[in-house]
């Protein structure tokens, strides 16, 4: 849906602004709120996001953080002390990192076009990539290398090496719609105000 409303370049700039609001916010609730917002936006962008994966990431970071104790002791088991500071730090780091990934997923479109020769090269690469995805079902596990060779020769002929393979068509994407600007303004305002108010 986001891809239909917001152009790739605008989306990237907007995403970077949202990441900035996450970076400047200092409190737990602000980080959690913006991360949750990022998750929803990533889903709106059509990206598959595994909450289990990010829960495990947060848990792992927290687990290693609690071995560097500081602050008020919450719980003690032998020589091991679970402290509020270490627990809070770990959870905050995990949530923030997850939020950064969610916002990146929402902001970055595979249709992003770079200027100049780099842009032209990326355009070719992406077109070849889309062609390979279309024919991937032709891969045969029993004759893997021969079926792979057939696909490779079809997508990039070698038998006339002096002939340049056909150039991919130019890709054009619509500019940002009114709905897109509403989404951009609304989410950026909400994140910014959250970062400022929830201190």
């Amino acid at each position, binding site marked *: 849906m986001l891809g239909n409303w917001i152009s790739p370049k605008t989306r*990237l700039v907007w*995403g*970077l602004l949202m*990441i900035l609001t996450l970076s400047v916010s200092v409190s737990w609730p602000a980080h959690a709120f913006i991360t949750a917002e990022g998750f929803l936006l*990533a889903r709106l*962008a059509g*990206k598959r996001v595994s909450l289990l*994966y990010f829960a*495990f*990431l947060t848990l*792992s*970071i927290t687990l*290693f*953080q609690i*071995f*560097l104790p500081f602050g008020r002791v919450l719980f003690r088991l032998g020589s091991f002390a679970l402290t509020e500071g270490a627990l809070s730090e770990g959870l905050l*780091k995990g949530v923030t*990192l997850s939020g*950064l*990934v969610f*916002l*990146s*997923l*929402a*902001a*970055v*479109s*595979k249709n*992003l076009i770079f200027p100049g020769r780099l842009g032209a*090269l*990326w355009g*070719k*690469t*992406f*077109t*070849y*990539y889309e*062609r*390979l*995805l279309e024919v*991937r079902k032709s891969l045969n596990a029993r004759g893997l*290398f021969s079926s*792979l*060779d057939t696909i*490779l*020769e079809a*997508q*990039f002929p*070698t*038998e006339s*090496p*002096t*002939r*340049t*393979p056909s150039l991919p068509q130019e890709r054009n994407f619509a500019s940002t719609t009114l709905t897109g600007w509403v989404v951009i303004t609304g989410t950026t305002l909400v994140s910014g105000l959250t970062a400022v108010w929830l201190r």
Partner: protein
Amino acid sequence: MEQKKPFRTDLTAFLGALSLFLSTVEYLFPKPVPFFRLGLSNLPLLVGLDLLNLRELGVLLALKVVGQALVNGTLASYVFLFSVAGSTASFLVMVGLHRLTRRIRFLFRHTSLISLSLAGALASNTVQIALSITFIFGPASGVIAPLFYGLGTLAGLGVGWLAEIFAQKSQWYKRLRDAQD
């Protein structure tokens, strides 16, 4: 017959696309631990060592890293930085070893892609573990480094073996190589 520049540019773009495609295929394989990557997307870099010059290999590396970040949507996150660091370390080691052994042919008749892949995997693992410990998980996470090195070694050997088999069996690759001469 030497290949013309537009053909070589297109070949670089195609190998970049193959790298992205293999990155997608990689997600189909179950991971023994989270955050672990098999490294299938390095296959085009390995087979490209004898097809492309240094500048073209550098462009292929950039297409692989930036392309994956764009396709997966991680361009604006720490994942991209980790990918850049690991892939660059791996690239420098693989290309360096490949070029060095090519110059000393009396010692190395043939540089196995398995050895190059393994060296690259270890370099990438080292950099990524160092970054993970420093910026994400903290010093206590050093205890899992042996596990990651072990898995990285197996993955490096596996990818190198696949690359070696492909280089030997693929007629497409053979025609590209013959056109270099």
